[in-house]
């Protein structure tokens, strides 16, 4: 019981402390073979980072849904969407074929040993972060049918403020 109280205390305490977070110092490869420094995303005004994997059904549904609305989202909010694949050596080789085969328009980064996932404290995928002016302002885990509308509303709200 003591442990549980301690946990609860930690959580309450740290969530209060970490109202705004910046991005970690990690470099990942994109599908063109270029190295992308995650910190450099802080320069873009509005960024959405979607953690996903080829083997994760809900992740693929979420990205399918966002890809259908992509043109309007980008036109309305000027957001940059970055899909970070946590596929490891087992499935990472198929990410390029998978993304293009599905016709997804997002920038894709490969996090094959979960370095970024760990640094951003992501438990399970899918997990979304919205970053504005270099600070994490929103995060959401999991995907249920239609949850993309909440993300879109959030992006619209943030693009105006």
């Amino acid at each position, binding site marked *: 019981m003591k*442990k549980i109280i301690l*946990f609860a205390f*930690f*959580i309450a305490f*740290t969530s209060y*402390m*970490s*109202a*705004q*977070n*910046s991005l*970690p*110092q990690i*470099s990942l490869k994109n*599908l*063109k*073979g*270029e*190295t992308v420094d995650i910190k450099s995303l802080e320069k873009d005004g509005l960024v959405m980072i979607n953690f996903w994997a*080829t*083997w*994760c*059904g809900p992740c693929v549904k979420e990205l*399918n849904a966002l890809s*259908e609305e992509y043109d309007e989202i980008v036109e309305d909010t000027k957001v940059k969407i970055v899909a970070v694949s946590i596929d*490891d*050596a*087992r*499935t*990472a*080789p*198929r990410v*390029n*074929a*998978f*993304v*293009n*085969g*599905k*016709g997804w328009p997002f920038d894709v980064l490969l996090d*094959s*040993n*979960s370095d970024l996932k*760990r640094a*951003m*404290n*992501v*438990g399970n995928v899918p*997990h979304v972060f919205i970053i504005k002016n270099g600070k994490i302002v*929103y*995060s*959401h*885990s*999991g995907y*249920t*049918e*239609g*949850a993309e*509308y*909440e993300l879109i509303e959030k992006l619209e709200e943030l693009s105006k403020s």
Partner: protein
Amino acid sequence: MNLKLKQLIPACILGISTLTTAQELGNISGSFESTTQHYNNDDAIGANFDNVDKWGSNNYLKLDYNYDNIYAGLQYEAYVPALYGFDPDGSFEGEAVASYYLAYEKEKFGVRGGFIYDQFGSGLIFRSWEDRQIGINNAVKGVRAYINFDDILNVKTVYGRQRKNLKETGTGVVRGVDAEVNLNNLTKLNGKWKFNVGASVVDRYEGGYSGPIEDFPSNVTAYSLRFNATNGSIYFDAEYVGKSKDAYVTLEPQIEVTDFFFDGNAFLANLGYSRKGFGINATFRRMQFMNFRSERIAQNNSLIVNYVPALTKQHDYSLTNIYVYAAQSNFILSKKHAVTGEIGGQIDIYYTIPKGTFLGGKYGTKIAINASQWNGLVNNGFLRFEDNKLVEADVDNELLKLGERYFQDINIEIYKKWNRKWKSTVAFLNGYYNNTVLKGGPGSGGVVKTQIAVADVTYNFTRRSALRVEGQHMWADDSTGDWAAATVEYTFAPKWSIYAADMYNYGNKKPEGSNEPDNQFQVHYYNFGMSYTKGSTRFAASYGRQRAGLLCVGGVCRVVPASTGLTLTLNTTF
């Protein structure tokens, strides 16, 4: 020193965080994950918890602190007690600050001390990672440094001992160095094609051998060379790993280091092409004696140095996860079967039939095809046994000949959105599973051929509420027969989800004259549950039967015992 460091880091983090606000002196972030299970006795699946704790609970609290280029963190873990099957040798009892780190890291240079997760290349030579579901955490407790020279040469080194369980590290020392050269920046050719070459050396030293052999391999050294090229559309990767002589460990009649030494190697190649709406990828791998541990006799998922995943499609429907392949790197030499490695490959094709065509409809139709096959190697040498004990071994494997077939899977999946209300996925799989070698299936052995059909339909009532119904059937020529399964799930986005599911092994009929109780045949593996998500916090509760078998994530598996009961999980990120 260890104790002091362990106490110092949390003290520092708490001290700093209480003194100041997040923006001024850095950020604190973290996550908490808790899985608690209550186990009931259940005759039908042979689950009995009479003389053991009926509760299991795995808990993880991770805290990270960052200020400028300084990073520090810790992970507190509590197993009160561990979930059944998570901990085969009983070493995960209790709680502890099980890992921690302190780092100074910039884009071109960094050092880190404490528990380190990293990989060289694809991980075929070295990978340390954590997977809580599987119960794997082989982080290296030691130091890591990296330095980048003008974006041309990237060098990193790792040195330490691997985490073995909650409180201990293994006795073997692991040290590695990895170098990667960006050929474009080296030659100042900046076209569309990007080329990289890499090389690594990883050495493991484990002392403690006191037997009569003079050249006993206390040091095992592996080296690797890799190359990759891509223009974003065509991509090619290849990697070769050689591993010096390592003592062969028998599993039967007991786990024991033998006087037989084998050297290992692996070759992995991948070629792909993609353009908008189409992608194809082909992978080939051959390996022998690639079981690489920092303690020779380590078993299961303990003290693994390298990562050799099963290169097959990771399916996400319940019946498609009954006969699951595991890469054959933990070798078994017995009278009946000599497994010294594997050879095989897989092909993936993804295609979207364009919008506006007859088959594409209004939204386009997405097709995914995958085929994989894995075989054993052909040994021209010989193995001699006396009383099931290996007494002479000469392994001389053919380079490219296919030996005994272990696994095959050919599958297709078609996804179609019909209109704003309806979506559907249909899938068909054809499988071949060598249960004698792989031992992952429910039956008693032999070759099992399976066909699986899946239909998965989603109906959206409104923008936010939807019903998903999924039906599956598996024809299996195993002694346990055919299966049917169904799931019904209702979601109310973005917070609520409820579901009920059943897997029914209706083909497992009671043989005439059997004395086994009736309820152990034609078992229903039912499950129902709900989840609630708010922001980055997710709570889920479920009740049901868990089939005994292999739970596999990312090609690494653990054995889960049969159980019936309640499961509660809480995940949060902050």
